[in-house]
């Protein structure tokens, strides 16, 4: 217990400090020439690589890093408090808090990174702490497998990230964000000119860097680890796999945004496509899942797809940059409501001891606080005004509409799906059938409900923050224009989704089965996550393990080592053949000796005389 309290107190201090920093940064220091400056708090050389390249560790403050500081420390504090109740009496409580603190440290380090290599360092560290936390219940084979999968998939993505960094740094000779993201960008001029297979080298490197981001942010097709990661304790899912770590990919793209927008528009187009596709893909799967945490996981993937899309359709500066602002805005509001959803789910699981929707129903009677906060979160994510999600989602839709309308219609449809699956979850758990519980579920303790309430306030009210004043692609304040036509369209489809969910799930009925039967093939495919897990299993198990590794091992043992042994055996054979000369027959030796002498004598006689 002591470990938890220490961790929480320290994190409380950190939260206060980050709010203080934010206050200082936004309001006391204020703007210079209408834009917030990027301040490098300190920056020390950590490792020298070449004459020009060195890895520094430092603190960089600019609007997005300050924003992320707030998000990370707030959510992390809430999760720390929540875990005091949720993890009470668990085996390895101290270990849990140690890992949680390690994660928070790494995430904060990532957020304030001054250069891309520092980001990579902390990026790996968040990956490792995520691995440790997913595998927290290490006696459970599924948790072990999930943690392994999460690490390896993100590691594979990080390979792209690393190679991207290597390419970028080779051509620019710097890791520094300040130099790289400078819009006038002298350092990028040469690299943008060098091309390789049709694309500039810069675009290649930015695509590879995005691959790292896609891995962490669970973008298609590297999304498969995130649903499995739900094997970790639920507060961890709230912190790492909903609010903070998985948006690191978005943050990475936002961090490098000037480079993407000005120098590598091709890679930005890829980002937009991947984001849009992922959001649709994940939303469809979310409609069919029954494990409440998995529904939330797919919902997270879908929402991050929104953020990526928003970045993908944005341009640098002015009205074109509204997608950037929208993305960051959605990141913040999403952190609030998704953390809330997960913590609410944790509270439900805590009470019911099951993850399956089938075991739940009518819980609103037993757990009023959870029910109300959960409802707020659902309304927020579905984009019902005046909750936070409405505003941020609306900005994304508007940005997509002005840039590429096709993406707008996709996302508009996904918004409907979002409302549908969220309320499917809500009605299924809190309304729906009357379930008989063996142990009567009861409301969670205060340490768990307080974070719920705090986050509910955030999820309800965060939308009124004038986000454009603080965060924009070029640092200049930017007024988010409110589009009534888009807003009404999105409210319409959200309500439609909500209504459909209510019709199907508010009361117990056979309607869901009928609908599912109507889409039979598609439903089954979606239920099995479009067989992506099987595909990955095939690649890792059959191809890497059985087609590469085992034949190589055989080759090593039998061919390479066999060759070495063959040399040894040949020498042995030779020795066996030669040893016959040592017959032990004294007279034979003497005969050889004498004939030798005779031959020598003859030679000497013939040649010397």
């Amino acid at each position, binding site marked *: 217990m002591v470990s938890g309290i220490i961790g929480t107190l320290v994190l409380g201090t950190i939260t206060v400090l980050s709010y203080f920093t934010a206050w200082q940064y936004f309001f006391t220091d204020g703007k210079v020439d209408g834009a917030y400056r990027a301040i490098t708090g300190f920056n020390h050389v950590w*490792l*020298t*690589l070449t004459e020009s*390249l060195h890895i520094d560790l430092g603190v960089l403050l600019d609007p997005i890093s300050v924003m992320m500081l707030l998000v990370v420390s707030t959510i992390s504090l809430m999760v720390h408090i929540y875990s005091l109740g949720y993890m009470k009496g668990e085996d390895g409580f101290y270990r849990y808090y140690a890992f949680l603190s390690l994660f928070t440290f790494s995430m904060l380090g990532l957020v304030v990174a001054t250069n891309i290599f520092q980001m990579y360092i902390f990026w*790996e*560290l968040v990956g490792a702490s995520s691995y440790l936390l997913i595998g927290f219940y290490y006696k459970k084979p599924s948790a*072990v497998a999930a943690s392994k999968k999460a690490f*390896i998939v993100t590691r594979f993505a990080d390979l792209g990230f690393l190679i991207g960094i290597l390419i970028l740094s080779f051509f620019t000779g710097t890791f520094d964000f300040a130099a790289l993201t400078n819009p006038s960008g002298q350092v990028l001029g040469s690299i943008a000119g060098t091309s390789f297979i049709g694309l500039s080298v810069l675009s290649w490197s930015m695509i590879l860097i995005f691959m790292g981001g896609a891995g962490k942010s669970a973008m298609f097709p590297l999304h498969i680890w995130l649903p499995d990661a739900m094997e970790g304790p639920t507060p961890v899912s709230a912190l790492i796999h909903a609010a903070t770590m998985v948006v690191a990919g978005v943050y990475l793209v936002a961090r490098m945004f000037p480079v993407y927008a000005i120098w590598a528009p091709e890679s930005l187009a890829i980002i937009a496509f991947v984001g849009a596709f992922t959001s649709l893909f994940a939303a469809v799967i979310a409609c069919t899942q029954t494990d409440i945490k998995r529904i939330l996981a797919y919902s997270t993937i879908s929402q991050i797809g929104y953020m990526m899309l928003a970045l993908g359709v944005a341009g640098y500066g002015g009205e074109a940059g509204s997608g950037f602002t929208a993305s960051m805005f959605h990141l913040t509001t999403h952190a609030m409501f998704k953390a809330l959803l997960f913590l609410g789910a944790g509270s439900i699981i805590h009470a019911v001891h099951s993850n399956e929707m089938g075991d739940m129903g009518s819980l609103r009677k037993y757990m009023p606080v959870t029910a109300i906060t959960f409802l707020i979160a659902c309304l927020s994510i579905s984009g019902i005004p005046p909750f936070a999600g409405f505003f941020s989602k609306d900005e994304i839709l508007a940005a997509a509409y002005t840039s590429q309308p096709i993406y707008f219609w996709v996302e508009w449809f996904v918004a409907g799906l979002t409302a549908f699956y969220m309320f499917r979850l809500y009605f299924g758990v809190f309304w729906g059938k009357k379930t008989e519980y063996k142990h009567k579920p009861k409301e969670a303790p205060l340490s768990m409900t307080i974070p719920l309430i705090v986050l509910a306030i955030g999820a309800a009210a965060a939308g009124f923050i004038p986000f454009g004043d603080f965060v924009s692609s070029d640092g200049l304040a930017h007024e988010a224009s409110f589009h009534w036509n888009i807003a009404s369209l999105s409210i319409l489809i959200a309500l439609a989704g909500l209504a459909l969910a209510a019709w199907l799930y508010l009361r117990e009925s056979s309607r869901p089965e009928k609908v599912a039967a109507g889409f039979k093939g598609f439903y089954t495919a979606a239920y099995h996550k479009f067989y992506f897990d099987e595909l990955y299993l095939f690649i890792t198990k059959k191809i890497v393990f059985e087609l590469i*590794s085992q034949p190589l091992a055989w080759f*090593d043992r039998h061919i390479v080592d066999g060759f070495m042994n063959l040399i040894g055996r040949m020498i042995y054979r030779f020795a066996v053949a030669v040893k016959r000369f040592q017959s032990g027959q004294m007279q034979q030796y003497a005969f050889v000796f004498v004939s030798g002498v005779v031959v020598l004598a003859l030679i000497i006689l013939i040649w010397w005389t």
Partner: protein
Amino acid sequence: MGLLLPLIIVPVLTVIVIAFTRTQHQTRMTAAIGMGIQLLLSVNLVIQYLLERKTGNKAEMLFRKSWVWFDSLNIKLDIGVDGISVAMILLTGIVVFAGVFASWKVKNLSKEFFISLILLATGVFGFFITIDLFVLFLFYEMAVIPMYLLIGIWGTGPKEYSAMKLTLMLMAGSALILVGILGIYFNSAPDGGALTYNLLEIAKINIPLPAQRMFFPLTFAGFGVLSALFPFHTWSPDGHASAPTAVSMLHAGVLMKLGGYGCLRVAMFLMPQAAHEMAIIFLVPTGISVIYGAFVAVSQKDLKYINAYSSVSHVGLILFALLMLNKTAITGAVLQMVSHGLMTALFFALIGMIYGRTHTRMIDKMGGLLKVMPFLGAAYIIAGFASLGLPGLSGFVAEMNIFVGAFQVSDTFHRVLTILAVSSIVVTAVYVLRVVARLLLGPIEKAEYEMIEDGHWYEKFSTGLLIVAIAGMGMIPLWLTDMIRDSLDPIMTKLASSI
């Protein structure tokens, strides 16, 4: 006496004292004290070295001392160190000290065991401080030969076979090295004058190009055998699998680094033109080592085999980096020597301890051990993280130097190889996590494993020491990299002058 001579004298004295001890406890205490002094001497050497450099002493080698040993052939016991050898000496000091504690419970013939072990260590220390090629070779042999006894007598499994194979392959390597060294010696005075074995003297002249072309491949391949260069790596899995714990630690941790060090100090430093010409040829097998070792490790079942193949991959990376012939990559190579030395020693120490408890090394027969041995399990996970290059641990620092350095060479051939080598980090993650999952996590496989105790004090001490070193190097790498970078200057000048 200076700072360097005690590094050879202390182990020899320890051996003599051990020869007179009576009980097992006396033996191991003597060994521990002797090697403890040795570690202190190494640390002191590092400090003195850094202080001396700070005063502005720019000599290539510091703390030079010289004694004539065999006048007519101009063989001298000529000692001196630069940053690279200082780093390697520190590594050896740590690993040997940890190794003594890892073999605290050697049952039979413990006196003879420690004598051989420390003789081996003497050879390694001697190798790193000497700058006379002949004496260097002498110490090299002194390090290789006790290995035969150590594996053949105290090993497990098919120990005679493994010991024989390892020794014979390393001897074949030494034969190549000897030819190379003699070749260098007889070409050390192309303009007439006295022939010399002295590294620094030879570095001042240019060995004629035909001689370089002839002796560079011999020397490089000879030292390469010791660094498990593909396809001469097969002694490593068998040898490591059969060797007792401390020997595996010392062998994979330090002895394999002798190869990399020799390649750098003897082959590349003295024959730079040939190095430039032939780097491309040797890059192919090193590149294969890196990726091939990693892939083979994925499907192994025996913990020691996994680690041996992982060593093939990681040590392959050392040679790979050396052949990139630029400062960053070579710094990375030296860092990788230190880093891999520490983490592989930790791995082998832990494997020995696990084997002592479960009596099997097959990963599919184990499971859930983290619950019964949290300390050793956590240590294993840390070692695994270091191996897959997690920032904050030593592997990351080394690998990033290597990758960034390798990426500075910009033709397509090097690029492709570099990217292949970089992708080994994913494969590494696969096999490391596979082992961790099978071995430590999940439900406990057998009821008898419930009885397993966590590490004893000496085991905790041994692993703790290595973990501190790994984390220390991973978190505060700058002093070490600067020390190595500065010392690389003469080598880089020599390499650059030959283009």
